[in-house]
Every structure is written in C-alpha cells, then in structure tokens.
C-alpha cells in the first residue's frame, strides 16, 4: 500500500477505534451486571485483562519482527519490533497500575504477587531492558541487531518465567485469589473490550511504525544530502 492508502486505512481504523472504545466503556460500566462480592470495583477487570492480553500480543509481534530482522537484515522489521515494544510497554503499564487499584480495596494490599501480576511485572521489566539496550547503542544497524537478539532471549525466557512463578506460588500459597470466573452475562462486555483493545493495539503499532519509517527515510535522505556536498 502506498502513503495515501495507508492514511485512508488509518483514518477508518481510527474511526472504528473511537466507536469501539465508546461501546466498550458503555458495556463495561453500564452494560455488564454488577458483580456480587466486589461490586463496581470488579469492572476494572474489563480493562486489566485485555491490556494484559494486548501486551502479550505486542510482545509476540516484537519477537517475530526481531527474528525476521536477524534473518532478513531489513530495517523495516526493526521498526516494527520497536513499535510493538513501545506499545507493549504502555499496555503492561496499564496492567501494573490497574492491578494495585483493584487489589487494595479487595485484599487491603497494593501488590499480591499473584502469578499473573508478577509475570506482567517481569515482562514489563524485560520490555524496559529491551528499551535500555536500544537506548545505549549509538549505531542504528548494531542497535537493531543487539535488541533483536535480546528480544529473542526475552521471548524464550517468558514462558519459563511464568512457569517458575506459578510453581513458586504453589509452594507458597496465598489467600488472595484473583477471580478468573465470569458469569455468562459478563462475556459480552468482556469480548467487546477485548475487541476495542485489539483495534487500539493495531492502531498504535501502525502509527508508531509509520513514524519510524519516516525517520528511516529521513536518515536515508540525510545520507544522500551528505553525498552531494
């Protein structure tokens, strides 16, 4: 697709996103029934869990793009990896912020060290480490290479991390159990939120990717300008 078609697609996507978010908000706050034990606080679930899912999805996109970069050595894959990583950080930050907000009133602690929350924390740290690596390598090609390698280490690490934390939790059980169960009436709201967040994910990654592509192009033009001197 060329530039103008991209712009059109993004405008449509943006419109869809707006509608989707409004519907999702309505469904989460008004459409879905009130939960028995936790009351309205439980509604945070509709944002907490989809954010986690999208963060994970972004993680997978990052790793796929990193692998492709190592194989093809084409910078556009690196741009995609970076975009996915940045968006992923945002989603995981949402998870890490909504988690304590939910936990405090229910269990009177800010942090529960539950498998889901802890794994999100570790994945969030892995993302940040990825950003740190990127930040401190000056040469663009090398930066792409190093961060791609780290991204692959991270994705291989993630399941082992999750499993280890789960097992550790089994060894040291806690009374604070997060609800995983949803009554049938809640599913429409849940699915709507997932859909809205998915559109958000795609939209944000696309916008960031095109920004990065523009930067690559500027770099290329600067090189050409340099040659003309």
């Amino acid at each position, binding site marked *: 697709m060329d530039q103008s078609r991209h712009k059109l697609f993004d405008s449509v996507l943006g419109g869809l996103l707006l509608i989707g978010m409004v519907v999702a908000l309505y469904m989460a706050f008004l459409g879905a029934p009130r939960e028995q034990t936790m009351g309205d606080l439980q509604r945070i679930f509709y944002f907490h869990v989809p954010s986690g899912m999208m963060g994970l999805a972004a993680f997978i996109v990052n790793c796929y793009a990193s692998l492709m970069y*190592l194989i093809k050595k084409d910078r556009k894959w690196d741009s995609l990896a970076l975009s996915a990583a940045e968006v992923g950080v945002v989603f995981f930050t949402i998870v890490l912020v909504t988690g304590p907000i939910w936990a405090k009133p229910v269990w009177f602690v800010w942090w529960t060290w539950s498998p889901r929350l802890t794994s999100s924390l*570790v994945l969030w*740290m*892995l993302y940040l*480490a990825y950003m*740190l*690596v990127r930040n*401190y*390598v*000056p040469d663009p090609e*090398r930066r792409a*290479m*190093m961060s*791609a*390698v*780290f991204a*692959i*280490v*991270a994705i*291989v*690490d993630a399941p*082992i*991390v999750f*499993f*280890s*934390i789960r*097992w*550790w939790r089994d*060894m040291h059980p806690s009374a604070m159990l997060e609800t995983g169960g949803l009554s049938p009436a809640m599913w429409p709201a849940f699915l709507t939120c997932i859909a809205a967040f998915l559109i958000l994910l795609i939209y944000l990654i696309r916008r960031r990717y095109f920004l990065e592509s523009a930067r690559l192009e500027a770099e290329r033009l600067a090189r050409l300008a340099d040659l003309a001197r």
Partner: protein
Amino acid sequence: MLGKIWAVFQKDLLIELRTKDSLNAMLFFGIVVLVVFNFALESTRDTIRQAVPGVLWVAFVFSGTLGLNRMFASEKENSCLQGLLMVPMDRGIIYLGKTLAAAVFMLIAEGVIFVFSLVFFNLTVWAEIPYLILVFFIGTLGFTAVGTLLSAIAVNTRMREVLLPLILFPVVLPILVNAVEATGIILNTADYRALKLPLTIMTTFTIVFATLAYLLFDFVLED
C-alpha cells in the same frame, strides 16, 4: 572443536590466575553482601535460617555479575576480540569457552562465600552438601549461559558494564526463583524429592539458553 573451547577457557583461566582481578572483586563483594544482610536481618536472628537461601543467592548473583562484566571488558583492551574474530572457527566457540570460564570463577567464589555464610550464620551442614553442590552447579551454569551472551551485548553499549545487571536480572529470574527454593528445600526441609521440579526447570533453562546463546552469539559480535 572441543580443544578450541578448552583453549579459550584455559586462556581466561590463566589470565585470571595471574592477575586475580576478577576473583578478588567477586569474593570481596559477595562477602560484603553477606555482612550487610547480617545487619539487615538482625531482628530475625531466630529464623535467619529461612532467609539464608535468598541471601546466599543474592550474594552469588551480585558476585557473578561482577565476574561476567570482566569477561568481555578484558577483551576490549587492545581489541583482543578482534583477533579472536579473525580465526577461522565457529564463533560460538568463543561463547562456550567464556561461559565455562565465567561458570568456574563464579563457582569458586560461591564456594568461598558459602563457607563464610556457614560461619556468619552459624549453620551446620554435612549431609546436605552434595545436594547443595548440585544446585549451585546447575544454577551457576544457567546464570552464566545467559550472562555471557548478555555481557557481550552490554559491553558494546554506551553504558557498558553498568547495563548488564539491568538486562540480566529479569532474564535469569527463573534461575533465581528455583535456586533459592531448592536451596531452601535442602537447608530447611529434608524433602529431597521436592528438588526434582526446580532442578528440572533450571536444567531446562540452562540447556535452552546455552543453545540459543550459541546460535545468537555471532549476531552480537558483528559490526
């Protein structure tokens, strides 16, 4: 190929035995960590045995990170790595040799730190020692398997060695969690059968990451 891995390993060992730069720093730092924890945990003197596994592994990991930092810093001097890259051999051999060297240094440091911890925390262990050695060994191998790769990355950044702990610790969390649990199981319960799971996870981690790092190492060294 094994001979070359051994050559790389021997070379690092020889340099270290001669200068003792790394080992001294690692030992000193590890023991300092023990001392600091002693003061930090004074109020829990009765139950300190519970905290020992965590304290030990924190000391090990900090000490090990110091050693890993030195791994490639010494190659940067005079661009020695460049000479290694010109040799017509699989570059993963450099990785394996260095991982072995890092593991050996770390194990030596761990041994000494552990003995100090026995003294500082008034522990008596005899029957537990073979099991502890097993856990230390696998945990260290897993740590250095990833650590060597990440050290090679960190040393090529502007922040150099300072970056290593930041990118390493989240990645080696599984090793840490399982090693501390396993050490705790050995020291505080005698339920050796419960060791099976953590040891399996640690071994899997080590094999998976050693293989992955071996394959990815070339990409890190390219310019």
